[in-house]
């Protein structure tokens, strides 16, 4: 018997609205099954159950806002009696927040629960507002409940914007910003970062990709971003020490490669959902999965596992025209790979000087877990794959 709780879908999440149950009491559920949808500041996220059993009791109604760690349902293991289950749950009213199932049994995968950041569980009445208005309100720090008082129709986007304009600029950063600030402060305070950078001649890889795409219909084309991520994943397979965690003074390596891909939302914000088991994908599959992940990130249809099981981070600020990225590691991960803009630059080969497409690849590593040599090996492998792109197919 166990409690299915509101998971933490990122360090910046304090609560979420349970939007919809996909199961009802008495339903049989299997590990990994999506059983509910929750709305967070990052959109609607489908959350999965992490054990096989039967839904004994649903504790929270739809449209209820719940703090992280709030019990949402009771799940009985196969063969467990109902009375016993309920009694057990009643006996332990407050437990630590759940830790999503690690992909591998031996290797702990999850950050420690950050209890101090969690407000008490108190389901609040949900204010009627359109999803766009809700998002805008979060962005602008407008209190929807206050806005709703004295109006019985749903709040629309324009009302939120009007309220934000009349309100004085908030003296404090909003909750999301503060939570990011906490995670990043912790990273910078605790993780001794080392930074390495190398220039990669991208001309061979881009020429190879252009030739490949020329033979393909528009639907089957591969974008450079997919090729780069595939190359990073292959390099991580060769240097697995960078794909894992530092927890409890111990370095653990993850068997699966789940790179968190930094995806910018057009109207502000950044999410780094995981491309799960990227090491099992060939180049076409990487392109397809990446396209799907980006689409779902922007439309708000991510899975809980994609929000929690990142094993490393890849940030590609190339679109913003930045040449070199020195990242801040997201704990408890031990590395972040930065890919800069591809620019035309002078390139010496032998005694000839020519202009080539050049990209700066950087890695920030956790010096407690690995040494600069590990990072250097990774960059060497990454360069190797980009000079031999046929190995990435």
């Amino acid at each position, binding site marked *: 018997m166990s409690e299915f709780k509101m998971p933490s879908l990122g360090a910046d999440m304090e609560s979420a609205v349970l939007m919809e149950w996909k199961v009802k009491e008495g339903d049989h559920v299997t590990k990994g099954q999506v059983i509910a949808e929750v709305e967070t500041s990052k959109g609607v996220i489908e959350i999965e159950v992490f054990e096989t059993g039967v839904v004994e009791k649903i504790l929270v109604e739809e449209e209820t806002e719940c703090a992280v760690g709030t019990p949402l349902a009771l799940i009985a293991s196969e063969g467990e009696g109902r009375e016993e289950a309920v009694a057990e749950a009643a006996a332990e009213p407050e437990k630590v927040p759940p830790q999503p199932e690690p992909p591998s049994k031996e290797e702990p995968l999850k950050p420690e629960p950050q209890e101090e950041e969690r407000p008490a569980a108190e389901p609040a009445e949900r204010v009627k507002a359109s999803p766009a208005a809700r998002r805008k309100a979060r962005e602008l720090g407008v209190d929807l409940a206050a806005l709703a008082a004295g109006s019985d129709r749903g709040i629309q986007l324009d009302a939120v914007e009007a309220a934000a304009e009349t309100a004085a600029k908030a003296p404090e950063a909003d909750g999301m910003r503060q939570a990011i600030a906490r995670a990043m402060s912790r990273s910078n305070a605790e993780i001794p970062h080392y930074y390495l950078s190398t220039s990669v001649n991208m001309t061979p890889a881009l020429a190879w990709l*252009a030739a490949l*795409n*020329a033979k393909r*219909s*528009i*639907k089957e*084309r591969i*974008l*450079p*971003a997919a090729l780069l991520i595939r190359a990073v994943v292959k390099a991580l397979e060769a240097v697995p020490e960078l794909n894992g965690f530092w927890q409890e003074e111990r370095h653990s390596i993850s068997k699966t490669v789940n790179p968190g891909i930094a995806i*910018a939302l*057009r*109207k502000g914000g950044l999410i780094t959902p995981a491309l799960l088991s990227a090491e099992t994908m060939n180049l076409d599959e990487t392109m397809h999965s*990446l*396209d799907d992940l*980006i*689409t779902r990130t922007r439309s708000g249809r991510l899975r809980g596992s994609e929000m929690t099981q990142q094993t490393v981070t890849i940030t590609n600020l190339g*679109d913003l025209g930045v040449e070199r990225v020195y990242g801040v590691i997201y704990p408890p991960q031990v590395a972040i790979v930065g890919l800069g803009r591809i620019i035309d630059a002078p390139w010496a080969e032998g005694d000839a000087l020519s202009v080539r497409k050049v990209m700066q690849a950087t890695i920030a590593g956790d010096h407690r877990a690995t040494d600069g040599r590990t990072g250097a090996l990774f960059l060497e492998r990454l360069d190797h794959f980009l000079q031999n792109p046929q190995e990435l197919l």
Partner: protein
Amino acid sequence: MTKEEIKQTIIEQIVMVAPDIEEEEIEPSANLQRSLEIDSFDFLKVLTALNEKLGVDVPETDYAQVDTLEHMTDYFEARL
């Protein structure tokens, strides 16, 4: 198809791929990707959708000719 219809078709596809973009935001002579923050994935989606609508395939080597709404309209007009 008139030039105006082609332009409207392009706008429709951009808004469909990136629903948070308002039609008024699309400046005819501004670089689509930069001004609208459309990344390479969205840009490819727009071209794929236009290929299905208009039957014109834009090879990668022609991407420089479809960088703005105006240029893209001209490009498709010449090939329809």
